[in-house]
Each structure stands twice: as C-alpha cells, then as structure tokens.
C-alpha cells in the first residue's frame, strides 16, 4: 500500500523543521562544540538542531497516520504583493528618500486586495506619504531624507 499523506500541514511543517535542524547541525558543528563542562558556541545550537530533527521526523511520521480536517489555501496574491511592498520599501528608502518610497510602497500595498481601486489607492498613497513626512520627519525628527 502506498503511504498517504493525510495531514499536509503537519507534513510540510515537519519537513521544514527537519531541514532547518539538519542545516543547524551542519553549520553549528563547524563552531567549537566543546563538552558539558566547557560548552563551546556550537553546543547549544547542535542540541537544538538534533531536537528539531527528532520533532520534524515525528511530525512527518504522524502526518502519514492522522487525518486533519480542512486546511487553509495559500493566498498567493497578498503574499507576493505585501512581500513586494515591504521589499520595495527596503530597497528604495536609502536611495530615493522617504516621500517617494512611501508613495510607491503604499500604492503597491493597495494592490494586495481583490479589487483594487485606482483613484482611491493613489489618494491613499499620497496622503500616507504626506503623513509619514509630517509625523516622522518633522514631528519625531527621525534622520530620513525626504527625497
């Protein structure tokens, strides 16, 4: 009989824990591990890595036997758009200044919903850029360049 994955969430999470655990062991064993008396910097991470591998494996095995009802579908549009909006902020803030960055990033964030409205989004983004400059640059005097 072919094994059936009955709990895909637990299965994927288990794989995630497993791979992070293996990675942690791999990297941390390059640091000095030491003994219980003189724990090196690698000791604690290696222990955590081993535990993660065990938990991950248990979770994968369990996912093959326990059925879990339901599960959430991945909302690709919000993930990509919100992720992109934050990433754009990170890339732009040191280059083009606060006001344009906030405008572009806010405009992008407005596109994350199902039916974005063009005019409303532009107005929201513009208002937010002005507010950001007002609160953070003039109000709190944070070291941003405006443009």
């Amino acid at each position, binding site marked *: 009989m072919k094994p059936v994955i009955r709990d895909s969430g637990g299965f994927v*999470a288990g794989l995630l824990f497993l791979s992070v655990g293996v990675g942690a062991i791999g990297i941390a064993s390059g640091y000095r591990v030491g003994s219980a008396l003189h724990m090196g910097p*690698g000791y604690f991470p290696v222990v955590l890595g081993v535990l993660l591998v065990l938990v991950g494996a248990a979770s994968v095995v369990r996912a093959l036997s326990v059925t879990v009802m339901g599960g959430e579908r991945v909302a690709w549009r919000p993930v990509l758009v919100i*992720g992109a*909006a*934050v990433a754009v902020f990170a890339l732009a803030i040191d280059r083009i200044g606060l006001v344009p960055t906030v405008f572009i990033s806010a405009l992008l964030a407005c596109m*994350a919903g*199902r039916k974005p*409205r063009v005019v409303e989004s532009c107005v929201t983004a513009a208002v937010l850029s002005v507010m950001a400059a007002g609160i953070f640059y003039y109000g709190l005097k944070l070291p941003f360049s405006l443009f």
Partner: protein
Amino acid sequence: MDLFAHLATGFGVALTPDNFLYCLLGATFGTLVGVLPGIGPLTTIAMLLPLTFKMTPVASLIMLSGIYYGAHHAGSTTAIMLNTPGDPSSIVICLDGHPMARQGRAGPALCISAIGSFFAGSFGVLLMALFSPPLASVALRFAAPEYTSLVLVALIATVVLARGRFLLNIGMSLLGLLLGTVGTDIESGTMRFTFGSPNLADGINFIIIAVGVFAFAELIANLGRGRAAAAPPAPLRSLLPRWSDLAASWKPILRGTALGSALGLLPGTGPMVSSFAAYSLERQLATDRSRFGNGAIEGVAGPEAANNAAAITHFIPMLTLGIPAGAAMALMLGAMLVQGIAPGPGMISEHPDVFWGLLASMWLGNLMLLVLNLPLVGVWIKLLSLPYRILVPAILIFCCIGVYSVNNAAFDVMLAAGFGVLGYAFSVLRCQPMPLIVGFILGPVLEQNMRRALLLSRGDLTVFVTRPISLTLLVMAVCLLGWAAYSMRPGRDG
C-alpha cells in the same frame, strides 16, 4: 506599611503629566485597535514599539501596557454590538453578548462588561501589588541551575498549554530558540549563523520578528481570508442595567475574576483561554442552561471579568521572574531589554519607580477605560466603517518606518519582509507563532544559565536534580510533558 509607601511612589510616577498622558494615549490606542477587527493587540504593540524607544522606560511600558489591556477591554464592545470579536479573547463574548444586543439590551451588556472588566482589572492590580515583591524576593535566591530549570518549565508549559498541536508547538519553540542564537556568542565571540553578514552580528532584533510575524503575516492572512460583512450595529438605548442584571452578574464576575487571575499566571494560557474557561464554568453552574447562547448576562459577565483579570496577572511572571507568559508579554520583555532594564527578580528592587509606576498606571488606565468605553461607544462603532483596504497600506508603511528607524538599516526591513512571508507560511501550516517568539526571547537566557550552571558544577549534569527548587521545577516539567503525551495518545488529534 511598606505597601502604601510603594503605592504612593507608584501613583507619584504615574500621575506626572507626561506619564498620565502616555497612559491615556495607550488606553485610547488600545481601545481603537481593539475595536478594529483584523488589528489585534499584538499587531499594534509590534507596530508602535519602535516609537516608544525614544521615551523614558516607564513611559514606554505604561503606554505599551495601556495598549494591551485597552485592546482587551474594547474587543468585547464590537463582540456585543456587531458580533465581531475585536481580538481572540472576546470571541466567547459574542455568544451571549450579541443576542442580548439583538434583544435591545446592548446597554446593560456593555455596562456589565465594563463594570466586570474594571473590577477584575483592579483585583488583578491588587494581586500584582501584594504578590510580586515576595515572589521576586524568592526568585532572587535562584542561582543558574534554578534559573535554567525555570526557563525550561516555562518553555514546556508554553508548548503544552498553547493552542495548536503539541508537536508543531515544540518545533516552533525550538525554531525560536535557534533564532535566538543568531549573532555573536557572548562568551567566545564566535559569529553564529550570520552567513558572513555584518548586519546579523548583533543578532536579530526582536522587533523584526515581531513585526514580520504579527503584523505583516496578519495582513496577508486577513487579505487572503477576505472579510465577511459585519452585522449592522444593534440599537443602543439605555446604558443602565436593571437591578436584576446586577444581581445575576455579581457572582459570575467574582468567579471569572478568580479563574482569570489564576489562569493568567500560567505560561501559554492567558486571557483567551481564561474567557473560554469562565464561559464553560458559568454554563456548568447555571440552573437553566438553555438560556446560554440566547442572551444570558452571566455569559458576558464571567468571561469578560476572567479575560481582564488574566490580562493583568499575565504581567506578574514577566515582571518578577523575567518569564513571558505569552506573545504580548514577550514583546513587552523585549521592549524592556531595549530600554536597558534587565527583567528578572532584581527588577522590582532595582527599578522600583518602573514597577510601581507601571502598576499604578494600570489601575488608572482601567479607570480611564471605564470612562472611555461607555459614553464613547458610538464613536468606536463608527470607526468600524473604515475599510480594511485603506488600513493595509497604513499599517504596512508604519511598520516599515518603525523597523527601519531602529538601526537605520534597510537590511532589517528586508528581513522583516522575509519573516512576514515565513509567518504567513506558519499560519497556513497551522503553526502557532507564540511559542516561537517566547523561545526567541528566552533562548539566550536558557543558554547562558545552562552554561554557567554546568561550569559551576564542573560539567556534572546532576546539579539540576540535587538542588530542591530546581528538582521541583523539573518534576513539574516532566508532569506537563507526561500529560501532553497522554492526551496525544492514538485516536485523538494531539
């Protein structure tokens, strides 16, 4: 008496114009976000954290805690009026609060929940004043082995008692501990998991994780779910409850307060579990159970009191032991660290102004909420018409600027984006973020104390079981694990 002198100091601190203003600001912000669905107390704390770093330590803690208990108060308002819980701990208020409102009794429901909240909050503050100093002085005698065991118990309790599945919670907790090791190792100077990036040399700032997992991931999840249209607000006639309402409510309020105060102390439970527990307790005790779900005032009074008592006693382990009992407390603890206050048993004696000032402000804040909530209900309800699609860019921008301004590093914002996507993946996989953030905060504490304990005992692991306090704590940990394993036996979804 000592206590009165301390309370006088506390009120002296809390009543300075600045601190009073921050308390009012925090309570108002908290109410605001408690009312708005989709922005919970965690998102708000994460969002406003960077702004508080420029304040004095007392002021920042006063404001953050105001946000926290304010949100707990206000969540029930929308639950009663619109059948939409403002935060998870008021889900249970919908069950009887909204039917009451539909019957034209929204006023009494709101009023009883406000009175219950205020009573429970005050009682929680009293407990905190009475029991925190003795608890801290006991904990002051803890050496490295005791502290190691204490952190272990806290981590295990978090994993066992938190919502969600046991195995996944363990995994999340371990992941949090591992994230806590990123950066320069204090004792050897070795760079761990920095992948050669100088940006990671000081470790990952907890704000990055908090904003990513609690703000960005929440935004994505809310957008993905789409929002059902809220029910039209119930009519609001008279605010005043009848005598029969008061007579029916005072016992549930007392019971809820007691239950919530106790559950708030345990790591991993907190306000939400307390309100559910109080609801089922009231249902068990009722003579006519069919009234529940159809507007029984006991079903509002009990859970609401429990929820607010727990919200206050939740602070006790954090302030006395340095052990956060939940995600919100982990964020508070992080804020204290940034302010240069070392949390732990020494905190009360080293920073009495912070502890007693915070305590006094909590009582003042609860009083303010009583005043804020009742007459302004109409205003808060209007806020709900603000569409979520406008809130999304506003929250996102606020968080980005906040994360950036901590170190003026664009790298941090990029990292937060990564944690946002990761946090959303966790929510799809039904992994709770709470054990992760608690593990992240407690990880360095655990590692340092474990190293110190084993260095002092010359590598002898029995040091943890030969000292009575440490042994007791470890026995508790084993019992918790045993109980969790028992409830995970085949045939149940553990």
